[in-house]
């Protein structure tokens, strides 16, 4: 860890402005989703979702309207066998539970891992 650097502004007692605190999202939260080895979709996506969103709605309605659905391998995703990662650690979602109920909080990062699918021409794209 780096030694903290004290600049002029940090000498004051004004608390830092946390621009992306959950209160600024009007009752919603941020959720990031990535799909491993499908870099044609150039970056993980940022979604605005309700903490009460059920995991099934994420899979059945939000993701099919996202960039991922435009990938040629999207129709081949076998949702029963997707390996999920939350904060880069293996995670087993519950389809019928809400994000909040299964600990998927504000600014959580979910990854979809589909070992059988390796992107365009097997290049990870």
């Amino acid at each position, binding site marked *: *860890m*780096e*030694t*903290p*650097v*004290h*600049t*002029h*502004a*940090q*000498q004051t007692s004004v608390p*830092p*402005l*946390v*621009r*992306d*605190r959950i209160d*600024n*999202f*009007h009752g*919603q939260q*941020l959720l*990031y989703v*990535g799909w*491993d*080895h499908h*870099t*044609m*979709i*150039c*970056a*993980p*996506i*940022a*979604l*605005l979702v309700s903490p009460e969103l059920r995991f099934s709605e994420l899979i059945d309605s939000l993701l099919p*309207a*996202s*960039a991922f659905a*435009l990938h*040629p391998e999207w129709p081949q995703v076998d949702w029963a066998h997707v390996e999920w990662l939350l*904060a*880069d650690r293996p995670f087993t979602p519950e389809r019928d539970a809400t994000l909040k109920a299964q600990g998927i*909080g*504000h*600014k*959580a*990062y979910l990854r979809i891992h589909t070992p059988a699918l*390796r*992107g*365009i*021409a097997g*290049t*990870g*794209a």
Partner: protein
Amino acid sequence: MNTQDTRRPSGKKLSLKEKYAQMTRGLGWDTTYEPMDKVFDQLGLEGIKIHDWDKWEDPFRLTMDAYWKYQAEKERKLYAVLDAFQQNNGHLNISDARYVNTLKLFFTGITPAEYNAHRLFSMLGRQFPGPGAAIACQMQAVDELRHVQTQIHCISQYNKYFNGLHDHTVMNDRLWYLSVPKSFFEDAISSGPFEQIIAISFALEYLLTNLVFMPFMSGAAYNGDMATVTFGFSSQSDEARHMTLGLECIKFVLEQDPGNAAIIQRYLDKWFWRGYKVLGLVSMMLDYMLPKKVMSWKEAWDIYFVQNGGSLFNDLSRYGLRMPKYWEQSVAEAEHLSHQTWNAFYNFSGAAAFHVWLPSDEDMAWLAEKYPNTFDQHYRPRIEHYRKLQAEGKRYYNPSLPMLCQTCQTPLIFTEMDDPTRTSHRQLEHDGDTYHFCSDGCRDIFAGQPDKYVSAWLPAHQILQGNCVEPGAEAAGDPGADALRYFHVVAGQDNLDYEGSPDEANWLRWKGLDKMPPAAAA
């Protein structure tokens, strides 16, 4: 401080050396109404110790009157060329209208950065008690302002004929990808005075500026853009002075106190990485946007950073400095950087103020030759897929918003070097919130100053918070359309592909290519 009276008896002309002493060092004095440490109140905050400001050497020994004379001469030459360029419709002599998209990137991304550099050096000059350093900052502040003006005047000719150049200041404040260079400068300008000068004069000007100026100016020369070449030349002699200031500054600080080296190394580590991340845009420009190519990003990085930077750090090792942290990673990534950056703009060209296009067969052969380890293996197949989709009229656009790095603000488009198909992602928890990063370098920078980076204005998040709506305009209800209007990007004119754009239609008409059969015109 120099307080002695060095005036000469009246009537006698001063020698150059005396004039220099009078007009630089003679301007410094110790304050008496207020203590010096209160007048220069930011100096002590960073832990850098300066024992003798008079040891600051100005290698150019320029006085303001000589400075005005030199600059005026350069201006006369520059404006003569710009006049000729306008009268002869010089914009018609460029290699291809696609080339102008590099100017759009430069003008919206770099010209406003020059203005921020002007502001930074104006404030910095006020913070240094040594007149040598203060005057060097003052001259650089004037230089930077001159660069902004000459760039605006040069590019105004292009603005009459091409789209996307009409609003560079608003775009720089709002447009998503421009938050990368913008946040770089705002990070610098809100740092302590020594960090500012190390960030800009050393890390940017000395270590990395060749990677901005060389590609753009050589690119201009190769592609027939004499106006840009001329402002490049006009800036170049200033850049040489700025680079010397950077080197002088770092040596001065290191020689003043042995304890300074550790702090300077930390600044170098940070600003090397910050600068490198901004250069992703330049890598795309070199490899994907110049119709006539100059050199590849990998070649440029090898010459200007690995070789030149390497020998510089050899010289500096006697002060206990080493190469900046993670420099080896930048070398490994040189094989991937431009391809991944270009792919992001192909994804999001609907929300950009310049056009993109697919590389031609010839371009791809060049890319394969320059990137034998990566292009065919990782990047050609996706481009061929895009080509197939376009031929079918199903051009792929990314309709989602990207996840951004909290520090450099780039979308998470980079991959791990041990597995170039897996997204590089780091995260940490701070004060109850989660923060995400594109790299170890960006995570470390955040961890060093979390209170600064928690306030980052990340465009994707601002759009989702509902803050990116043009003031006074009614929200269209479609966040994409609202954001575009907020960016001042005119839909269907400034954005999307070059093929089918008004820029392309105009160019073909001006060059008489619109009446030719499509195969011949291409």
